[in-house]
């Protein structure tokens, strides 16, 4: 196998606060291969955004503490100077964000904002940048790009603004596109459009995509591999088939059960994950998910489970239950909500 495009090694991100050290990301490792689509799934505060913001080194909070390595194409991004990092940002790794309504500068035309990005990373003549910007807008499906290029962000709808953000991200043909909840603020119909667009772009541009979301449904169609994060750690990792058809971690079951599914007979109640995510300052002893886990037993409150492969190739989970136990309990509790196993 070739070297992965991005490899995160034992990344820890903490913030000093008045109440103590908040361990937002607590020792995670994963890789992203070239052209691969990786979904990172978890609740608010699970550390999924912080992880990818750290890859971009976009966290400006002076109280942040990083540990670990982020290796992109053989270079450790953590060790790069600000100037060297700027070359990576926008040119090799691009990012789009959750709220398209506030992610574009309201005082400049969208053309200006795309051209600014192009000029920062390329040596272009005056007309070239504009022509390229029009091409990009056409590629992301904005009608009449020659006219719309001179419009300001507020003249676009939410879905259209997210398209502009994607055009911006694609302007330098990045090898890695990070999409942080790109559809959460949008209508389902517009969400379908944007996901379709990201899928096509992956096909046309061949860039790898990391898609962050709280909704497993969003990544079912688009992701090759999925990481499930809880309280700053990865609790399960596997390819799409493994995560959806043979989920191992009770937290993943909970996430799957929470979705009101259109493809299943209506249930009387949704399966929920009781309670709230734990405090990231004082992590509970043992497994972080134990206080909310209906399957917890003695060992869970003493020993922190490690992320290991138990069922198969590349399918990792952090749970003390044995594989047989897990399958039996899973089938007993949320069987009807799971997809048919192969």
């Amino acid at each position, binding site marked *: 196998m070739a070297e992965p495009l991005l490899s995160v090694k034992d990344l820890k991100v903490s913030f000093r606060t008045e109440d103590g050290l908040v361990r937002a990301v607590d020792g995670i490792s994963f890789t992203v291969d070239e052209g691969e689509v990786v979904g990172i799934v978890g609740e*608010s505060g699970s550390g999924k955004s912080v992880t990818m913001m750290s890859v971009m080194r976009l966290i400006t909070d002076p109280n942040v503490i990083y540990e670990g390595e982020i290796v992109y194409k053989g270079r450790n991004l953590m060790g790069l100077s600000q100037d060297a990092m700027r070359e990576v940002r926008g040119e090799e790794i691009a990012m789009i964000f959750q709220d398209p309504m506030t992610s574009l500068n309201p005082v400049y035309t969208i053309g200006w904002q795309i051209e600014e990005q192009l000029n920062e990373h390329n040596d272009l003549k005056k007309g070239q940048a504009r022509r390229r910007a029009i091409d990009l807008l056409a590629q992301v499906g904005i009608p009449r790009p020659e006219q719309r290029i001179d419009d300001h962000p507020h003249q676009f709808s939410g879905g259209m603004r997210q398209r502009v953000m994607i055009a911006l991200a694609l302007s330098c043909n990045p090898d890695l596109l990070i999409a942080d909840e790109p559809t959460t603020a949008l209508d389902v119909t517009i*969400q379908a459009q944007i996901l379709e667009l990201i899928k096509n772009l992956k096909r046309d541009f061949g860039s790898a995509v990391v898609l962050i979301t709280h909704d497993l449904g969003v990544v079912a169609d688009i992701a090759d591999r999925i990481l499930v994060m809880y309280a700053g750690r990865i609790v399960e990792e596997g390819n799409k088939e493994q995560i959806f058809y043979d989920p191992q971690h009770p937290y993943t079951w909970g996430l799957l059960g*929470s979705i009101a599914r259109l493809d299943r007979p209506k249930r009387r109640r949704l399966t929920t994950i009781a309670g709230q995510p734990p405090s990231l300052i004082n992590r509970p002893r043992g497994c972080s998910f134990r206080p909310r886990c209906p399957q917890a037993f003695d060992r869970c409150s003493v020993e922190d489970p490690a992320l290991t492969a138990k069922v198969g190739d590349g399918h990792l989970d952090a749970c003390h239950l044995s594989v047989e136990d897990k399958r039996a309990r899973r089938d007993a509790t949320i069987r009807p909500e799971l997809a048919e196993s192969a």
Partner: protein
Amino acid sequence: MSAQNGGPLLKAEHVVKYFPIKRGILIQREIAQVHAVDDVSLEVRRGETLGLVGESGCGKSTLGRCFVRLYPLTSGHVVFDGQDISNLSRRAMRPLRRELQIVFQDPYASLNPRKRVGSIVGAPLAIHDMGDRRERKRQVQELLEKVGLSPEHYNRYPHEFSGGQRQRIGVARALALRPKLVIADEPVSALDVSIQAQVINLLADLQQDFDLTYVFIAHDLGVVRHVSDRIAVMYLGKIFEISPAEELYRRPIMPYTEALLSAVPIPDPRESAARERIVLEGDVPSPINPPSGCRFHPRCRYATDVCRQIEPPLVDYGNGHLAACHHPLNVDKETLARASVDERRTPEAADESAKPSEPATN
């Protein structure tokens, strides 16, 4: 309020809500109108949950607010529990406010950050002069427990709670006066999926305990189908389809409904890859100048000339399933022959002779 126990709890008759757009030098002239809700008639039955779905800007929130008279109507009537409330004065409206409550979308913006939970939830009780101080406190603590918070949260501030917990506070506030009808306006859209499930289950439990009727407004058909007994689909200020929930999901008649259903992500990679996806092109057109004929025609893949010219009437396909479309889906010839135009609920402007003759072929 008694005699009409058999009838619907809430009835909307040709409800219209336009928002004026004004321009002018000294005197503001009305130059255009946003057609937020355009001639909507429907009923909410006692004890049921009516789902109201559509994209942003389709008027579903405006309609919900018209139901509780947060907005005055441009025209039409809203009849609540047998009483026409569309023209009631503020004072006459006041006792009814107890029975009509609303839960808002944004759990961060809809709670006053400077007030304690106790006074937020207790405010409706205090306004309506119910019980003395101690009695109110007891009631509020009971409510907090009912919505899954603890009575000790009485003295906390909203910022100490997560989004899901705040939404529970919003629900507790709405229930304080034991309303009959609760309008839930996108109550879970701002929450994580796992927390959405908690709030949805909570709403279902409370419906049983308090004998509530819900109007549940959302853009996610998955969630709406789960909570609703009947679903109304709105587009650009009009109702395009209304049906029992399961029926709508199995047999959408209006192409817009079909597209909405197909946009809901399915957490199953193989099924997701296998199903036909209808991705609607473009955005919802401006409600200032809605398209002619059927308002959905510019985005509809079945649209023909008749759709551009004639507004389709709501046709009753039996079993409480109504739809407004010239090219109905999932309907065979016999059903179509039996179907009749629902005159009561058809917008006055619609051409009533325009009952569809041919099912869509595709």
